[in-house]
C-alpha cells in the first residue's frame, strides 16, 4: 500500500501500468484524491464555460453582429450559466472541502468515504449529461440541441409548447442528478465536521474554514431540494401532462420563480461562503495575525445562513408581487448586508497592524476584498426595489453577479489554489507566473466587469443576442469584450504554472507558509492516513502554540 498519495511506482522502481493508475483513481474513496478529482473536473469545465463566454462576448462586440445565430447565442448563455455554477464553482468548492476539512480537523477521512466517491461521480455524470444534449437532444425541426431556456429556466418557456425537443430535459436531468451528488457531499461535510473533530477541538476551536463549510452544507441540504422538487414538477408537466406551471390550465408561472429562487438565492451563498472560508484562512497567515473577531465571524456566518433563506424574492421585484411583499424582501435583503459587511471589516481588521506579505494567494485575497466590497454595494443598490425596477434584468445585474462570482469567488479560489498547491503536490508554484496571472486577470476582470455596469444603466437588458446601435451601448460592449482576452491569457498562465510546477517546482516542505492550522503539520503531500497519530489541540491555532511555546494562543483566546 503506497503511503504517498501521488506515488507513481508500485514495487521498487517498476512503473505502473496506466490501467492500474486509472483504476486507482476511479475507485478511490480517499478524500484527498476525490478533492483533486473535483478540482480537476472544475478546471476543465472552467475552460468550457470560458469559451462559451468568449463566444457571447464576441457576438456582442458590436451591434447587429452575426457571428452566431440567435438560437446558438441563446444556447450559449444558458450553457455558460449552468456550467459555471453547477459544474465549475460547486465542484471546485466541494473539492477544496473534501481535501482540507479532514486535515484541518484532525481526521483521517470524511465521515462516509464511499458516499463521497458516489457524490463525485454522480456530479461528474450530471455535467456530462448536460453536454450530451449537444448530440442527444435533436427534436422537431432541429429544436433539440443544447438547452436555451436560460439557467433559471422560467416557466412557461420550459413547457412542451415553447421548448420543443429534449434540450430542456437535459437541463432538468443533469441538474437533478448532480443535485443528488451535492446533497451527498453536504451530508458528508456535516457528519465529518460535527462528529470527527480531534480531541480538544470543540466547535469554538475549529478553523473558520470548517464553520463556513458547516453552514454551507446546511444550506445545500435545505436549498437544493426545492430545485429538485421544482424540476420533478416540471418533468410531470412535460411528460405526464401535469399543470404545475401550465398557465392555460390556471397554473402559475410565478410559482416556478418562487421555487427556483428559494433554491437560487441560498445557492449563491453556497457559492460565496466557501470563498469566505478561503479568505479567512489565507488573510491571517499573510498578515501574520489571527483572524480578528472569530466569534463574531462565526455569528455573522450563521446569521447569513439564516437570512439567506428569506431573501429570495428580490429576484422577483418586477414580477408584480404587491407592495407588501416587495417591502418585506427589501428589508430582508438589506438586512443580510449587515453581517456581510461585518465580515469585510473583520478581514480588514485582521490585516490592520499586521505585517502583510504579498505572495500570490494574498494578492488574490486583497483583490477579493476590494471587489467584494463593490459587489456588495451594487447589491445594496439592487436591494432597493424601485432602483431594481430599472436595474433588474439588465446588464447591471449581470455585472453585479459576475463581480461576486468572478471578482469575489474566483479570486479567492485562485488564492486557495496557490495557497494549498504546495500541500497537495509537495511542490511550490512559480511566484513569478502567479503574479503575472494575478495582474493579467485583474486588468481583464476590471475591463470587462467594471464597464459592464454602464450599458445596464443605459437600458441594456440581458440575454439579448444583439442590440440596436444608437442606444449608447456600443463602445462599452467593445471594452467589455476586450477584457475577455486578458482573462483568457491569465488562465493560460495559471495552467502553465500548475502543470510546470507540478513536475519542476521546488520541493515545498510541510509548512511553506509558516501557517497555524493542522493541515500544515503533515508532510506535503499528506500520506493516505493523514496523521501518524491523531493530534490533541488546545487552541484555534495549534501550530502557533507549537511554534510559540512561551506565548501560546490558548492563554489569550479565553478573553475573546
Amino acid at each position, binding site marked *: 500500500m503506497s503511503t504517498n498519495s501521488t506515488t507513481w511506482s508500485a514495487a521498487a522502481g517498476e512503473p505502473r501500468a496506466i490501467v492500474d493508475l486509472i483504476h486507482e483513481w476511479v475507485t478511490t474513496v480517499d478524500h484527498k484524491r476525490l478533492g483533486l478529482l473535483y478540482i480537476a473536473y472544475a478546471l476543465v469545465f472552467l475552460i468550457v464555460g470560458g469559451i462559451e463566454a468568449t463566444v457571447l462576448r464576441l457576438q456582442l462586440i458590436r451591434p447587429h453582429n452575426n457571428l452566431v445565430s440567435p438560437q446558438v447565442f441563446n444556447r450559449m448563455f444558458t450553457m455558460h450559466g449552468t456550467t459555471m455554477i453547477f459544474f465549475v464553482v460547486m465542484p471546485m468548492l466541494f473539492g477544496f472541502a473534501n481535501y482540507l476539512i479532514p486535515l484541518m480537523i484532525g481526521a483521517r477521512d470524511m465521515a*462516509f468515504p464511499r458516499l463521497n466517491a458516489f457524490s463525485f461521480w454522480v456530479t461528474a455524470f450530471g455535467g456530462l449529461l448536460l453536454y450530451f444534449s449537444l448530440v442527444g437532444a435533436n427534436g422537431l425541426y432541429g429544436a433539440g440541441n443544447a438547452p436555451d431556456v436560460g439557467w433559471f429556466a422560467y416557466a412557461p418557456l420550459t413547457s412542451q409548447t415553447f421548448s420543443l425537443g429534449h434540450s430542456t430535459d437535459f437541463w432538468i436531468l443533469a441538474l437533478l442528478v448532480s443535485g443528488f451528488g451535492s446533497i451527498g457531499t453536504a451530508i458528508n461535510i456535516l457528519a465529518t465536521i460535527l462528529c470527527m473533530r480531534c480531541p480538544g477541538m470543540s466547535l469554538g476551536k475549529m478553523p473558520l474554514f470548517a464553520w463556513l463549510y458547516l453552514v454551507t452544507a446546511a444550506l445545500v441540504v435545505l436549498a437544493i*431540494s426545492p430545485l429538485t422538487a421544482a424540476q420533478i414538477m416540471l418533468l410531470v408537466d412535460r411528460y405526464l401532462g401535469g399543470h404545475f406551471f401550465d398557465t392555460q390550465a390556471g397554473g402559475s408561472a410565478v410559482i416556478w420563480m418562487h421555487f427556483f429562487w428559494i433554491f437560487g438565492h441560498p445557492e449563491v451563498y453556497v457559492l460565496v461562503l466557501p470563498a469566505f472560508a478561503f479568505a479567512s484562512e489565507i488573510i491571517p497567515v499573510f498578515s501574520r495575525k489571527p483572524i480578528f473577531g472569530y466569534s463574531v465571524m462565526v455569528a455573522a456566518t450563521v446569521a447569513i445562513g439564516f437570512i439567506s433563506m428569506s431573501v429570495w424574492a428580490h429576484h422577483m421585484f418586477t414580477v408584480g408581487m404587491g407592495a407588501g411583499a416587495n417591502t418585506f424582501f427589501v428589508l430582508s435583503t438589506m438586512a443580510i448586508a449587515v453581517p456581510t459587511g461585518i465580515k469585510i471589516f473583520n478581514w480588514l481588521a485582521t490585516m490592520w497592524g499586521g505585517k502583510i506579505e504579498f505572495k500570490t494567494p494574498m494578492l488574490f485575497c486583497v483583490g477579493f476584498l476590494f471587489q467584494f466590497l463593490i459587489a456588495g454595494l451594487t447589491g445594496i443598490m439592487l436591494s432597493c426595489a424601485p432602483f431594481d425596477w430599472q436595474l433588474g434584468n439588465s446588464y447591471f445585474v449581470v455585472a453585479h453577479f459576475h463581480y461576486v462570482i468572478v471578482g469575489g469567488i474566483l479570486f479567492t479560489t485562485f488564492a486557495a489554489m496557490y495557497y494549498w498547491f504546495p500541500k497537495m503536490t509537495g511542490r511550490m508554484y512559480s511566484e513569478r507566473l502567479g503574479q503575472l496571472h494575478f495582474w493579467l486577470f485583474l486588468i481583464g476582470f476590471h475591463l470587462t466587469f467594471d464597464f459592464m455596469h454602464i450599458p445596464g444603466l443605459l437600458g441594456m437588458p440581458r440575454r439579448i443576442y444583439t442590440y440596436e446601435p444608437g442606444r449608447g451601448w456600443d463602445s462599452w460592449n467593445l471594452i467589455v469584450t476586450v477584457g475577455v482576452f486578458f482573462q483568457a491569457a491569465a488562465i493560460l498562465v495559471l495552467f502553465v504554472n500548475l502543470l510546470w510546477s507540478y513536475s519542476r517546482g521546488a520541493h515545498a516542505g510541510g509548512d511553506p507558509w509558516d501557517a497555524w492550522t493542522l493541515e500544515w503539520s503533515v508532510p506535503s503531500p499528506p500520506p493516505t492516513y493523514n496523521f501518524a497519530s491523531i493530534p490533541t489541540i488546545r487552541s484555534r491555532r495549534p501550530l502557533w502554540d507549537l511554534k510559540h511555546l512561551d506565548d501560546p494562543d490558548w492563554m489569550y483566546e479565553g478573553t475573546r
Partner: protein
Amino acid sequence: MNATSIMLRQPVAEQVPSRGRVAMVSLIGAESAIFTIFVVAYIFYIGKSLSGPAPQDVLKAPVLYSICLLSSSVTIHFAGKALRQGKAAVFSRWWFATITLGAIFLFGTAREWQRLIYHEGLTISTNLFGTTYFSLVGLHAFHVIVGLLCLTLVLIFAVLGHVEPKHEYQVELLSLYWHFVDTVWVVVFTVVYIVGR
C-alpha cells in the same frame, strides 16, 4: 512534534453525535424541504382548478389505511426495543408487522388511485387538483416503497439470523427514516383530506 508540551491537562471529551445520526437527520432535512415545496404547491392550488373533479367530490379520507401506516411506527419502535433486549425472534415478528402494515397502506393507496382514475376520471393531467394530488401522494408513496425495500432487506437478514443487538444502531437509523415517512403522511393527510376539502 512534541504533543505533551501543548497539553497541560486532558481536555474534556466533547459529546459528539454519531455520524449515522447526523447523516440521517440531514437526509430527513433535505427530504422535508422537497415535501414542503410539494405541499406548498398543493395548498397554493386549492380551489384554482378551472374544471374537472374537485376534492370534495371525489376524495374519501383513507382513515383505515392511515391508521395502519401510523401503527407501523409503533411496531417498528417495539422491534427496536426487542432487538436491544436481544430477542431476535420477537424483533423479526414486530419488524414483519411493520412491513405488513406499510404494505397494506400502499395497497390502500393503489385502490384509491384506481378508483380515482377509472371511476372518477381524475388523473395527473386532468386539472390542477389532479396534478398536485397525484404528485404529492405519489412522492410520499415512493418514499414508502423505498422504506419498505430497506425494511424487507433487513427482514431477510433477520430471518437468516444475521441481525444481532450490535446492529441496533443501523436499525435505529432506519426507524428514524420510517418515522419521518409517517410524519409526512400526517401532514399530507391533513393538507389533502382535511384542509383541502
